[in-house]
């Protein structure tokens, strides 16, 4: 018997807001979390950077500190702080804090692209700039790419399997997929999945600029005149649960993860190739048992880069053909920026909310149609919809692709 995979909790934190509900409200109101920033890393004038970004300006840590004490977020890189806050929200909603299932029937699979950029840079500033001969003993515990997974396990008391998945912008997509498969295989009853990133540092900023993937104005998915992505930060977590386990404890089921598909382009370290995206979407449809004719809400990867959007649009046309007319494409990175390790998770959450509320959020900053991106888009204002099934794309640098499918309940 196939195990059905319920979503029983969701949490998110991004430039668009803290908490799933405020984030959703901002999103459907057409608000943007992107604003101009001008920063100096470590208050050093030489390390100045500025431009548009979706940054977290304030953080309410009162609830998590009330539960676990004032030191729960001490000695963490920001990416682990974000992961903690998003996961606490999701676990609280699921009603699983302090639950007996955490002892050994719960997995943590967390997506992170690069780890503790802030800590790495502070460490190297100390070595190379201040010429110090020693570094902080917590450098590695803070910046290791698995730090967030460890922090979640420590904080929640999860003693089952826990690890990090790193596949750049598809990290949390892959984490959700593997969590679903662990539940299907009967290895666990609960899987805490998602991802997070804190990439907005001096080095991070210049590195993304160097790849020429960053916009100097706005994220305009599938639009003419698009010129790149906008950096975001934050985290998003879903609690996936064995359906029978969730029902038995009377949990509220928010949605169902019905399938996933993954693939690798084997093509280029930065350029996407449509064939990999096509393969991942077809695998997800097959896994979920959903026909291409089924009307779908599609939460696109939609980064706003020239290459991603035209490749993704072409892949969508290849997979769905004429049936694409009955689908609708959203691209929420235009509002919350690119969360890298957290992108797949926040976009799946917002897609599930769109199914639930029967409203599709608008794509922001659209200037006009690009013939190479001819897919049905939600433009202008939020649009009433009535889709039952969601397909959510994550296509990473280096050609690592993950597609998740979910259903309204």
């Amino acid at each position, binding site marked *: 018997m196939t195990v059905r995979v319920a979503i029983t909790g969701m949490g998110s934190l991004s430039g668009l807001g803290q908490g799933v509900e405020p984030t959703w409200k901002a999103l459907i109101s057409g608000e943007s979390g992107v604003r101009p920033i001008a920063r100096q890393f470590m208050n050093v004038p030489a390390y100045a950077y500025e431009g548009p970004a979706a940054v977290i300006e304030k953080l309410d840590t009162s609830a998590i500190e009330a539960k676990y004490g*004032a*030191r729960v977020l001490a000695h963490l890189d920001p990416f682990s702080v974000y992961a903690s806050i998003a996961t606490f929200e999701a676990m609280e909603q699921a009603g699983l804090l302090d639950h007996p299932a955490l002892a050994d029937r719960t997995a943590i699979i967390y997506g992170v692209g690069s780890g503790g950029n802030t800590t790495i840079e502070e460490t190297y500033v100390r070595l190379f700039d201040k010429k110090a001969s020693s570094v*902080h*003993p917590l450098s590695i515990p803070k910046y290791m790419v698995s730090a967030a997974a460890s922090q979640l396990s420590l904080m929640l008391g999860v003693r089952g399997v826990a690890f990090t998945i790193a596949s750049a912008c598809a990290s949390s997509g892959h984490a959700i997929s593997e969590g679903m498969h662990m539940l299907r295989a009967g290895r666990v009853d609960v899987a805490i999945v998602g991802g997070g990133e804190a990439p907005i540092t001096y080095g991070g900023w210049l590195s993304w600029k160097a790849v020429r993937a960053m916009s100097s104005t706005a994220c305009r998915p599938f639009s003419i005149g698009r010129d790149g992505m906008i950096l975001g930060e934050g985290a998003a977590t879903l609690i996936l649960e064995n359906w029978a386990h969730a029902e038995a404890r009377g949990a509220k089921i928010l949605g169902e993860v019905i399938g996933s598909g993954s693939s690798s382009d084997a093509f280029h370290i930065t350029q996407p190739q449509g064939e990999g995206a096509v393969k991942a979407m077809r695998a997800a449809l097959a896994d979920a048992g959903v026909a291409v004719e089924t009307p779908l809400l599609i939460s696109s990867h939609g980064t706003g880069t020239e290459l991603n959007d035209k490749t993704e649009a072409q892949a969508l046309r290849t997979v769905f053909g004429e049936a694409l007319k009955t689908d609708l494409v959203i691209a929420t990175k235009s509002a919350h920026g690119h969360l890298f390790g957290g992108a797949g998770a926040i976009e799946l959450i917002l897609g599930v909310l769109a199914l639930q509320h029967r409203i599709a959020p608008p794509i922001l900053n659209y200037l006009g149609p690009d013939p190479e991106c001819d897919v049905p888009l939600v433009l202008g204002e939020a649009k009433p919809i009535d889709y039952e099934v969601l397909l959510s794309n994550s296509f990473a640098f280096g050609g690592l692709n993950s597609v998740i499918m979910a259903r309204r309940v």
Partner: protein
Amino acid sequence: MAITADDVLTIISEEVPIDRAKLDPAATLESLDIASLDMISVMFALEDKFGVVIEQDDVKDAKTLQDFVDVVQAKAGA
């Protein structure tokens, strides 16, 4: 730069972190549940903010907050 006892206690409260009001100079680090790793963070912050370099060996005998403050002030004045 002169470092006051208040400067040191403020950095301890920020780095540990711990409520500033709990930091009675006569209290022992142990009674406040302040671990040696926490104090290393404090030492790094003191170096960043005041340029005073304190080695772990310098504070190995410090039991109370006042002991620690005394070491910091002695190093800063040296």
